[in-house]
């Protein structure tokens, strides 16, 4: 059980990060390290979670941390590609109201 993180930056001032796998207490530190390093760069970060089929509170915590870091440095963190499960978790936790999302997130299938 692991995650893969791919970074590419074809657009100016924007770093695209694509994550694949399950984000839990074991894999979250990798994502945290990557994101927090990028957050210091001052670019906007576009996080594609289409390859993530599972995330728990540890992973959500990493995203909250990155969002805060971006907010304080003037950058943006935009999340896209969420499946309906992830969308649902963002809704339950209230993160949907706070964070910024791209257009290509699946609807919460349960409500």
């Amino acid at each position, binding site marked *: *059980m692991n995650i893969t993180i791919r970074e590419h930056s074809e657009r100016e001032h924007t770093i695209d990060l694509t994550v694949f796998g*399950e984000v*839990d*207490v*074991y894999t979250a530190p990798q994502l945290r390290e990557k994101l927090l390093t990028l957050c210091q760069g001052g670019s906007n970060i576009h996080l594609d979670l289409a390859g993530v089929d*599972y995330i*728990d*509170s*540890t992973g*959500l*915590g*990493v995203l*909250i*941390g990155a*969002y*805060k870091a971006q*907010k304080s440095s003037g950058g943006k963190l935009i999340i896209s590609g969420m499946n309906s*499960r992830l969308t*649902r*978790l963002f809704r*339950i*936790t*209230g*993160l949907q*109201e*706070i964070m910024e999302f791209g257009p290509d997130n699946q609807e919460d*299938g*349960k*409500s």
Partner: protein
Amino acid sequence: MREQPLDLVNLTIPAKPDYVAIARLAVSGIANRMGFSYDDIEDLKLAVSEACTNSVEHAYSGENGEIGLSCNIFENRLEIEVVDQGHSFDASEVESRTGPIQFEVSMSLVRERGLGLYLMRSLMDHVDIDGDDGVIVRMTKYIRKNEVGSHVESPASYPTR
């Protein structure tokens, strides 16, 4: 007399981040066999992971320990116990600090942690936490047949066979 489960599956894992996925996979397999819906299986996986993560991070704080997972299989529900022998915590005190994130508050106050217990409560039908010497998390999820537009936060109606 307390109702006896049809079957009981016990699993002991080391209280390390590496093994939380194993607990999740075991519960996923059991729930699948019992006939839970896809969404309910995902809820169970997440709730079990949160309980195990809690033990890994708080109960042993760096020490070696074990987490016991008991899956009690009933006709209409799955009851899961997650047990550790680490340092217990005041569940009611933690509970008072958990809940959905309030977007009105300043972003600097938004928690990065503490969502786990809230998620467990949101995704399971019943969650009970106690223990003086270590922590026992007991959680129950009922099998919903012919689910029609149910909502996560609303209490479910249980099939009575």
